[in-house]
């Protein structure tokens, strides 16, 4: 068979490969110097108006101050904030050349290059740390790049130096623990990772690596407990790096507001989260996820009326948005609007027939209204679903018991026994202490 010339596009000349491009940026700065008037312009078709305006404004600044390194750097930050990475790299490069004494430009450039090639980022981290050797977050990132490049001894030294600079830097301790684990020293890994976890209890990565270290050290039970606890932690790990955070704070698209708000929520900063969400809604009020997140934040902040309004708006914009119908149903129930709550709960069940919490809500409202048939029907569905999470299961047991008692009051002992039987099943399955009481009550009914 002959080799046909390919009709597919190819990477082409090696110079087009991104890693090679990054290396050229690092090794041959003079060759990539942009003419002062050549401002990298990202493709903005489809971008949100606030983003287009902001970038246009910064471009105008640059044209007026094309030899100003900080203007280039600010432009780079805005580009990076909106994930225009190629253009941001070019702008940071120019900023570094024009303002060689400013720490943040080689640092931000290094961090971006690092996403594509850790090895290529090393000279830039070194250049940044020569300007400010005491900025611990940069030293940690440098250490991580060394680790990714396989330079484990050097990485170990840099993590240790970062920990000396800032003993509360959890990532430095985690790095030491990770290297110890990889080197087979599980006890040292447990020690370092425990310190990291103490400093950043919300960080899932530290927790799961510690769990693994315990298992390697022969303490699987302890490891399993930590692993189980880590399930409730979010997948995004935040780090205290004011310079890098200042980049992301510049993002003006609606999604970035939501992301920043979620970061604030993780840290319990509800007021900051609320402000971000309001700002995001100002940018694009048609985003249901922003309204829904605002509803959740306001509820957590003790503002039920505001929460209800925001949830209503989210529901109007996208009734099938995950979680919004159940949230609104609960909110309406809490305000005493039983009809509204029932409608929304039924709608939520239409969207997700297995949502036991909504079954309980329907049962509760139906019972309140004397609709015994619907109450029993939906409780039976909930029972069949066998909820595993303790609050829902306990709620179901309580409702089954209450309905059973009501049936007894209406002289329906057989039906009542059926409800108690189900409650007892669930309690026994959960090995709940309530099982004994339910067993006694069931025996009384049968007698």
């Amino acid at each position, binding site marked *: 068979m002959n080799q046909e010339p390919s009709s*597919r596009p190819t990477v082409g000349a090696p110079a087009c490969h991104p890693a090679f491009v990054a290396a050229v940026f690092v090794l041959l700065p003079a060759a990539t110097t942009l003419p002062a008037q050549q401002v990298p312009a990202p493709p903005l078709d489809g971008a949100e108006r606030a983003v287009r305006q902001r970038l246009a404004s910064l471009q105008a600044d640059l044209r007026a101050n094309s030899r100003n390194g900080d203007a280039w750097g600010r432009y780079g930050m805005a580009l990076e904030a909106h994930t225009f990475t190629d253009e941001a790299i070019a702008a940071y490069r120019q900023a570094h050349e024009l303002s060689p004494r400013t720490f943040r430009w080689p640092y931000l450039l290094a961090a971006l290059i690092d996403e594509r090639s850790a090895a290529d980022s090393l000279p830039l981290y070194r250049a940044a740390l020569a300007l400010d050797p005491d900025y611990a977050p940069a030293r940690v990132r440098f250490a991580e790049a060394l680790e990714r490049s396989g330079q484990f001894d050097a990485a170990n030294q840099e993590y240790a130096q970062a920990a000396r600079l800032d003993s509360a830097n959890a990532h430095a301790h985690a790095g030491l623990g990770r290297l110890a684990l990889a080197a087979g020293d599980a006890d040292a890994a447990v020690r370092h990772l425990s310190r990291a976890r103490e400093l950043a209890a919300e960080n899932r990565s530290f927790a*799961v690596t510690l769990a693994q270290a315990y298992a390697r050290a022969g303490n699987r039970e302890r490891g399993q407990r930590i692993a189980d606890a880590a399930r409730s932690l979010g*997948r995004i790990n935040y780090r205290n790096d004011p310079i890098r955070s200042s980049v992301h704070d510049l993002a003006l698209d609606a999604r970035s507001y939501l992301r920043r708000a979620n970061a604030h929520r993780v840290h319990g900063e509800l007021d900051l989260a609320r402000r971000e969400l309001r700002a995001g809604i100002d940018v694009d009020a048609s985003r249901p996820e922003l309204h829904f997140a605002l509803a959740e934040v306001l509820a957590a902040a003790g503002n039920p009326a505001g929460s209800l309004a925001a949830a209503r708006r989210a529901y109007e914009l996208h009734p099938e948005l995950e979680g919004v119908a159940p949230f609104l149903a609960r909110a309406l129930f809490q305000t005493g609007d039983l009809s509204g709550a029932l409608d929304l709960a039924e709608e939520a069940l239409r969207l997700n027939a297995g949502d036991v919490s909504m079954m309980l809500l329907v049962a509760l409202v139906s019972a309140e209204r004397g609709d015994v048939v619907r109450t029993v029907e939906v409780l039976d569905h909930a029972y069949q679903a066998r909820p595993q999470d303790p609050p829902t299961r306990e709620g179901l047991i309580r409702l089954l018991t209450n309905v059973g008692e009501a049936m007894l009051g209406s002289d329906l002992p057989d039906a009542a026994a059926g409800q108690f039987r189900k409650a007892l099943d669930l309690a026994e399955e959960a090995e709940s202490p309530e099982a004994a009481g339910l067993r006694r009550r069931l025996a009384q009914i049968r007698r």
Partner: protein
Amino acid sequence: MGTAEAPAADAEAAPVVRFVDVTAESGIEYVLPSGTDSTYPMPAVMGGGLAGFDADGDGDLDLYIIAPAPGGNRFYLQQEGGVFTDATSAAGLEGDGMGCAVGDLDNDGDLDLYLTRVGPDRLFLNDGEGVFADRSEAWNAAVPGWSSSAALVDYDRDGYLDLYVARYVAFDPARVCSQHGGRRDFCGPTEFEGLSDVLLHNLGGTGFEDVSVAAGITTVEDAGLGVVAADFDHDGEVDIYVANDADPNNLWIHQGGGRFLDDGVLQGSAFNRWGNSEAGMGIAVGDADLDLDLDLFVTHLITETNTYYRNLMLPGFEDATIDTDLGAASLDLTGFGTAFFDADNDGDLDLAVANGAVKRRPSALAAPGAATAPFPFWSDYVEPNLLLLNEDGRFVDASAQAPWTELGLSRALVPADLDGDGDLDLVIADLDGTPRLLRNLTIDPGADTNATTSNWLRIRAFDSRLRRDAIGARITVQTPDGARLVHALPPGSYLSAGAATAHLGLGAADTVQGFEVVWPDGLAEHFPGAAANQVVELIRGEGRIR
């Protein structure tokens, strides 16, 4: 603590294994339709499945190509001379889907096909001549929700193949996602709730029973994409590894009695070295470090490396991506299909990875203004694939030459000896592109090179009582260079299925001294040695090679 300085690139010393794209000569001109449009439907960027299997029992491999767009699936029968003809309609395999599993589900001696979909899955039983009947409902096989990859596994050792179906997310087509300053793009998995996976127990070749709850696998709802089943800890019970997209991977360790426990976190295969869950897509499985256990390799998103989990048999794994030089080549690419395979028949396992972005790349690889045939929609998404050669336990990027430099949106990848010459070729499914048939020229009947250093064996473990391949059989081969471990396993990968036949490169060795087989039910059996460069069939209970 050792230091592993990255070796300097040495283009002169880089090993070369030649592949050539023979799609144009194969008769396959079909373009796999993604179904993408201005609404950026997520299934369109995740699909692109593939099966390479002998559907009609004539001894060569046929191809089933699976598309997310309605009516997009195609079935090709291989004819003499390596030409493929479209037999979709005659075979009864029209439709759409995501991926598939292939195996003999009713133990009647032919290969049946399970098709995963965004919606109810479908089961097709083979009549033995490559004509399939839809038995989805009768077999209780219409698993709902978005299914991705599936693995055949006889977990209860009753002789019938059960099915583990990885499921992805509760997709909501109304969800709008964006990036790059608000430009619309495909949603990622974190926009939706994950789905629990499904385990279907085979009821004696007559149907399936959903035993997911009893098996304990519904305790997590993660975005599953890749799945392989094998006995990772050699305790005699088959385990299941699932690559999840942005969620921790699952290592379901079989506790016996049909109960599974996810031990991925403590065994070091749920997260990468950094304790991060990554965008797990495809899985390669094989003994990459030649220490007689199964290692894992999982492909990931751009800005994440692909991850190599080295089996330490503690039991447990370690992320050895950095130590094996497997990180750098993948950092700027989004990997999907992948396979360990001995590309050069030198006795160790190399790697192939199919790539293609799921969101607009931060840096487009297609030259500005260049044609991005056949579908310009993907110009910001296309990427090259990777060939990584194993050189004494470190992997060297050997992708500098065509066809590896060609850009596309590749998904499923299956290694298979399509032309029967003794080296492993590759088939790769490309979204909105023609499937790629890459012929391996390590053994080239037209040339007289390599013949003495590229010996090989293809090994089939056959259970004549069951009338089918013994999927999961563990085979230790005594070679002049030491023991080598292979498994009778489909290649894993992503949305794909292939023959459960093991391939072993032997380098210069022209014989092997013997085979030790551990059959899926635990029985161990010895077989005598054999000469290289042939297909050997190890037949259970006979202690002899056919």
